[in-house]
């Protein structure tokens, strides 16, 4: 055990900088993938709630397919199959798009649950005070839904961080690929992969703890007391900020 750690320490001057460099790619993949996923998820959820059959069915089948196949298949299709029809992505771009598509479908499901949890009356009253449907969504519905969906969406972001390792298989030079490269130079697989695991852990674990704390915070403060106040006719903190924002818009 001591020798194991000593070997890692001996090699750290060589491995460390390379792994830190690679974790920048991992982080970049995660963040851009997440932004893509969130926007795509919103779009899917928007399309799914339209009156027209076409966007609704398109969104639903996209979600169905993306939720049913592994990320690896999506990445391979983007990276190896699309060049066949003339669309060529770099491996990083393909990774961002692949991660974004798959996690976007998941985020769309989370958003649906969150939006359905906002009472129907909120829509009716927002529209009846003269807000356009878009403004009603942006100023009234979305802020309330966000409180519900924030923890699961952040969990999705951590899952995306872990899934970014799969991009190694389409040659994005992130942590996992870098560690494989080091392994084939040094033939110390156990050392390098345990060290890589530590890198991932030190990225994902604090985030997981943060989400747990946030969840507890949202449940304790934004949960029951606010609803009780609403019943007595008083406005709670969240509602007043919404009305303030609306009046500042008007």
């Amino acid at each position: 055990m001591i020798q194991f750690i000593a070997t890692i320490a001996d090699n750290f001057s060589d491995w460390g900088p390379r792994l830190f460099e690679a974790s920048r790619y991992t982080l970049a993949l995660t963040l851009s993938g997440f932004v893509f996923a969130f926007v795509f998820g919103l779009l899917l959820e928007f399309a799914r709630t339209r009156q027209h059959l076409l966007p609704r069915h398109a969104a639903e089948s996209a979600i169905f397919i993306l939720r049913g196949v592994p990320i690896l298949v999506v990445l391979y299709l983007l990276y190896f199959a699309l060049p066949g029809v003339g669309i060529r992505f770099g491996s990083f771009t393909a990774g961002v798009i692949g991660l974004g598509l798959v996690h976007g479908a998941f985020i769309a499901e989370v958003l649906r649950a969150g939006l359905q949890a906002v009472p129907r009356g909120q829509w009716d009253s927002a529209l009846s005070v003269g807000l356009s449907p878009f403004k009603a969504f942006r100023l009234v519905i979305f802020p309330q839904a966000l409180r519900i969906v924030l923890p699961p969406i952040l969990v999705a972001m951590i899952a995306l961080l872990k899934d970014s390792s799969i991009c190694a298989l389409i040659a994005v030079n992130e942590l996992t690929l870098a560690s494989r490269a080091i392994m084939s130079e040094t033939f110390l697989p156990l050392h390098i992969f345990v060290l890589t695991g530590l890198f991932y852990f030190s990225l994902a674990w604090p985030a997981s703890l943060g989400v747990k704390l946030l969840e507890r915070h949202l449940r304790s403060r934004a949960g029951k007391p606010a609803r009780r106040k609403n019943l007595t006719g008083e406005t709670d903190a969240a509602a007043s900020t919404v009305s303030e924002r609306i009046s500042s818009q008007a």
Partner: protein
Amino acid sequence: MSDFLLQSLGSLLNGAVTTLGVTAGTLTLAIVIGAAFAAAQQLVRFPALHFAIAAYVEIFRNVPSLTYLFIVYFGLAYVGIRLSSLMAAILGLGLIGGAVLTDVFRAGLQAIPRDQHEAALALGLSPFQTFLLVIVPQARRICLPPLGNYAIGLVKDTSLVAAIAAPEIMFNARQIVNESFQAALVYGLAALVYLAITCSLGQVFKILERRAAY
């Protein structure tokens, strides 16, 4: 062309057998670990054990599956434990799944109201009987939907096993593409095979949930 399609489909379905085998093995291992640890959390009052289980869950939930597959397949071989790629896949994914299911089962057990314990104890059941005869049957119903989600996610995660050379769907697909350069066709076909598996598994769990309902 249709010859090529049939041949590819045959090879992918061959891979699907491996995929299903890895899924079944992993699911069994994960359920055993998850049930044992969740039960231990409920029944055993020994702080060190609780800490160890919590550490296990955090360590295995916050590192990518691929890293664990590499540790189990390449890392263990380095210290002399040489596993076949299928065994390594089941062990690696099973340990991760055990952490996921420990959390799932714990949440299910904790969701049973306190009165159920008290009522069962008041009837004269031992704490162990209470757990086995009163709590677990009710928690099973709560755990079924997340267990189904885990199983479907697992089918998708087995595609990573291709990276340690287990001949499952994606590994076979990759080989066909290397020979034929028909990437769109073969990977599209692979996507259909995965969709068929995940859909049927979803239906199976739907039926199980309906049976378990009141």
